[in-house]
């Protein structure tokens, strides 16, 4: 047998001509300015190294948000010490899931924005509501070029009136707000648990900070149990309105796990003795 894939079941050369090797070599590098470009420019069609869920919940005096430290390459644990919750200025944090290279690009954009905003200014003017608007525009702009930044973002912080902002922005430039938010798998696994605690803004007004932190920690545990692309080390961000503080606790470990059920699971891989 001929092991060259190019010879497997190709339509006859006589009818369709030679195979266009450009198809196999297509890249996202823009070659349109060169004369030998026979194949269109290709954009990101899937993320490569990815970060999984970011989750957030509102409570009576702020927001708690968490995201684990993992960067997966397919099912491989490629990075285990990745900070996916980053502060922007002193009024906001963003938690980013999805493609890590696009995350790093956004990180750079946000850094530039912070620098740009501090020119000529006595006080800081970049608030969380401005930031979420900006990110929405960036994401929508890129999706309109058919070249999206492959991320889902949660923005949290304070607006111009020091009120809380909690917003979700995705790779299509869609933005929405809710007292509980999650990206990726968190939308399936964490949102139902978060909504048991907080369904509406009124529920959020009753939830204490301690309960909120516990709820988020429980969700991170469930996510680690069931989301095979998650990690048990995560960052926990607590925003407090009364003190106007934003604290990010790093390297928090998932606690109180029980794995003894695992020995009864059979049918995957090599049978355990």
């Amino acid at each position, binding site marked *: 047998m001929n092991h060259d894939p190019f010879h497997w079941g190709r339509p006859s050369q006589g009818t369709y001509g030679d195979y266009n090797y450009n198809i196999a070599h297509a890249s996202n590098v823009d070659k349109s300015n060169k004369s030998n470009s026979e194949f269109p420019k290709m954009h990101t069609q899937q993320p490569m190294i990815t970060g999984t869920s970011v989750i957030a919940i509102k409570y009576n005096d702020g927001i708690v948000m968490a995201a684990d430290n993992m960067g997966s390459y397919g099912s491989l644990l490629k990075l285990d010490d990745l900070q996916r919750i980053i502060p922007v200025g002193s009024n906001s944090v963003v938690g980013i899931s999805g493609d890590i290279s696009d995350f790093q690009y956004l990180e750079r954009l946000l850094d530039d924005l912070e620098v740009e905003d501090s020119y000529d200014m006595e006080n800081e003017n970049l608030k969380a*509501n*401005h930031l979420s*608007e900006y990110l929405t525009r960036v994401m929508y702009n890129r999706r309109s070029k058919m070249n999206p930044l492959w991320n889902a973002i949660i923005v949290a912080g304070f607006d*111009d009136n020091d009120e809380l902002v909690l917003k979700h922005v995705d790779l299509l430039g869609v933005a929405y707000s809710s007292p509980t938010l999650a990206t990726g798998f968190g939308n399936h696994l964490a949102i139902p648990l978060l909504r048991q605690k907080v369904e509406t803004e009124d529920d959020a007004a009753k939830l204490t900070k301690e309960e909120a932190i516990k709820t988020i920690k429980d969700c991170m545990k469930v996510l680690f149990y069931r989301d095979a692309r998650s990690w048990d080390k995560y960052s926990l961000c607590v925003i407090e309105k009364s003190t106007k503080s934003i604290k990010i606790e790093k390297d928090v470990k998932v606690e109180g796990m029980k794995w003894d059920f695992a020995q009864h699971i059979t049918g995957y891989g090599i049978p355990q003795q």
Partner: protein
Amino acid sequence: MFRNNYDNDATTFSPTGRIFQIEYAIEAIKQGSAAVGLVSKTHVVLVALKRNAEELGSYQKKIIKVDNHMGIALAGLAPDARILSNYLRQQAMSSKMVFNRPLSLSKAVHSIADKAQENTQSAGGRPYGVGLLVAGFDDSGAHLYEFLPSGSVLEYVGAAIGARSQAAKTFLERKFDEFPNATKEQLIEFALTALRDTLAQDKELTTANTTVAIVGKDQDFTVYDDDNVEQWLNLLDSLTNTRSTNIKDEEDDDDDDDEGDNENAEEAPAAAPESMDIDP
């Protein structure tokens, strides 16, 4: 033709550290009719004297709205002011579009200051021949800035630019401690009184030649022209220059009354740093 060897372009210093083309551009502001601005804690008022080229012609627009929260008054070359105001409008729109926030005043004035400064440091160009009073209300309160072709931008509690603006400045200097707590009506009255002081002897403020604008807390930038300024002109007891009645004016020495006579404009501007003999 040239007055000296150092005014052929805007990029050459004279040995005394001056850039003549910039100073000439600042002279151009004084060719334009006067504009006055002043600030209270909550409001900014701009007033200006419009000119018509001839009796049957229309009046030159002196106040341009940039956004709901800011606008400019100009003195000097109006076409140059249009370039700057269009640029400011773009900046204001982009701030709304990208960040969903109104453009802050300091960002706005610094953006045009940078544009103007480039013209003083690149060959082949000329500085803008216009001065602006930029008024607006943002997160940090009410602001009035003066913009000059040199690219310098300074914040004022009261400012006047244009022909005979020194007279308005004198009035503002006498009254400025009453501005912060003034109501918007008082503020407009102060502004119009200052503007009245810049009038030539046989002129008076009319609904046709006066333009008033106000912006502030819970008050979008509003321009009053023609019949709409009447309500504000009624605040004044007299519409003619009170200074011209008790003439024999003080030291009416300098540049504030010499419209159109170019020989006169060529004497060194007052701010000349201990000028050595600059005439060749």
